[in-house]
């Protein structure tokens, strides 16, 4: 069998699959479950400074090619998240990534410093949530200077490896990647959800989500995610966690070949269950065996050669 292990910022993953932020990762028990199901790394749901209930339900709706969600950054707040994160780090064999957000660059840094106490393998700055414009203003991920200021503030507080989660919903994505790399970001996570989008129920004539709009995930966005990762690869000389629409080993290999070193799997849990991580890892190994690859590094960026 091929060796499916991979590395991001020197952190070893047994296989390239990653539970991305926003799926399952509310509690240590959930993260452990995903890790035991075979995820190469697991990400805790984005934490902010204070507890947030998020938007009113419905916050998730499905359609034939994925999900629409506007959870609205609900989280238990930094203090409780640190306690849960400590438990997760102690329980999970797989590396734990701690996602976080803030209203200002300084708030990002403040939350990052708190989360770093729990010693996760990596921090991930969520500068790209598409569902909180009215409260937070334009996402930092839309503006290279704003994104860079977040990284600079975080890096001043902690030396822990930092990934920055980018938005596909801006023509500035590549400029943002270069700007955060220049400030010392260690990795890129791409992409956050696409859109926003909307679903309307025609009998009741109402948008389904209470927030009306939400970010699109799942199969519908895979070609967008693959294109973004392809464009980002080599651009900022940073390793990439490729996220968007991956549900099979073939999808994961496609994302690796676009330039990702690890691959997020979220919406696919809906159809393939939590076992999707182990299944995709096996499917990647089968593809590698069948096609003469012995290491994941041979796949990463292969579509650029």
């Amino acid at each position, binding site marked *: 069998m091929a060796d499916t292990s991979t590395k991001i910022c020197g952190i070893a993953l047994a296989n390239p699959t990653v539970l991305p932020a*926003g*799926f*399952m*990762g*509310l*509690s240590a*028990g*959930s993260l*452990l*479950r995903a890790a035991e199901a075979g995820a190469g790394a697991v990400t805790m*749901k984005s934490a902010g400074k204070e*507890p*947030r*209930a*998020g938007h*009113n*339900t*419905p*916050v*998730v*709706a*499905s*359609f*034939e090619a994925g*999900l629409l969600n506007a*959870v609205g950054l*609900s*989280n*238990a*707040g930094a203090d*409780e998240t640190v306690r849960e994160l400590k438990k997760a780090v102690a329980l999970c064999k797989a590396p734990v990534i701690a996602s976080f957000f803030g209203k200002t660059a300084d708030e990002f840094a403040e939350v990052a410093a708190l989360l770093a106490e729990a010693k996760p393998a990596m921090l991930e700055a969520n500068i790209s949530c598409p569902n909180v414009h009215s409260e937070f203003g334009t996402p930092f991920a839309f503006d290279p200077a704003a994104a860079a200021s977040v990284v600079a503030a975080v890096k001043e507080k902690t030396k822990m490896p930092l990934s920055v989660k980018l938005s596909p919903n801006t023509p500035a994505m590549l400029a943002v990647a270069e700007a955060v790399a220049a400030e010392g970001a260690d990795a890129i996570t791409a992409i956050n959800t696409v859109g926003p989008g909307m*679903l309307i*129920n*025609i*009998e*009741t004539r*109402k948008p*389904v989500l*209470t927030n009306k709009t939400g970010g699109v995930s799942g199969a519908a966005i895979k070609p967008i995610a693959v294109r973004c990762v392809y464009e980002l690869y080599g651009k900022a000389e940073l390793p990439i966690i490729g996220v968007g629409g991956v549900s099979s080993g073939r999808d994961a290999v496609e994302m690796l070949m676009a330039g990702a070193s690890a691959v997020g799997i*979220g*919406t696919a*849990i*809906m159809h393939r*269950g*939590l076992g999707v991580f182990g299944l995709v890892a096996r499917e990647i190994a089968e593809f590698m065996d069948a096609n003469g690859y012995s290491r994941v590094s041979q796949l990463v960026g292969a579509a650029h050669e």
Partner: protein
Amino acid sequence: MNELIAARIVGIENENGKVKTFILDCAMPAKAGQFVMLWLPGVGEKPISVSYVKPLGVSIAKVGEFSGRMHQLKEGAHVGLRGPYGNGFAARKRVAIVAGGYGAAPLALLAEQLKGKAVVVLGAKTKGELLFEQRIKKTGARLIACTDDGSYGRKGVVTDALAELLRNERFDAVCTCGPEVMMKKVFEMCEAAHVECFASLERYMKCGFGVCGQCVIDGQRVCADGPVFASHQLRTMSEFGKTKRDASGREIRI
């Protein structure tokens, strides 16, 4: 099943002063213990136990804003619906059913699906809050009604009646739904009596199909792995009967 459908209310039944049953023109196949996500446009979306099947019916107590708005709806109104979700109760031969308060909704359906081959302990605070007494009687099940204040049936809590049953009879399983503190007690009694217990648990839910993690108890997703959990799972749950999470994910005491 994850896609939202619109269903029309074709019948409304007053079950007691607080609970109304809404019958929907919806042929969704479901079994006892499963639930649907019920959407009221502009109000919200909640997980609700299936109370009747063919056609689908849900029984809703007026306890807050969502249920208050639901109670104002008239026949002909549309609600949104997705599901059915969850595993439902497992089938066993000699079953004792322990229902506390609103927990009677899925369990009355279970008694019907067991065709009356069950003993049902049905409890409420007072006579006016007993749910589905006639409906359960009609299944042919042996019914033991209990009220905390003694205004009807036995005076006392359901676990008193269950203790007697477990002492005097043999059961393959006890199926329970109701306040979690009550279910925890039922589970502990089953453990002592070496009888398998199935408890239908409830947590704050968002997606309903196992991706968001909001309803997780010790790694188990109430929506997708439950809501009915068996003894071997209940044994491993440190949060069962103790803590739950609010909409933000903060742990709060039960």
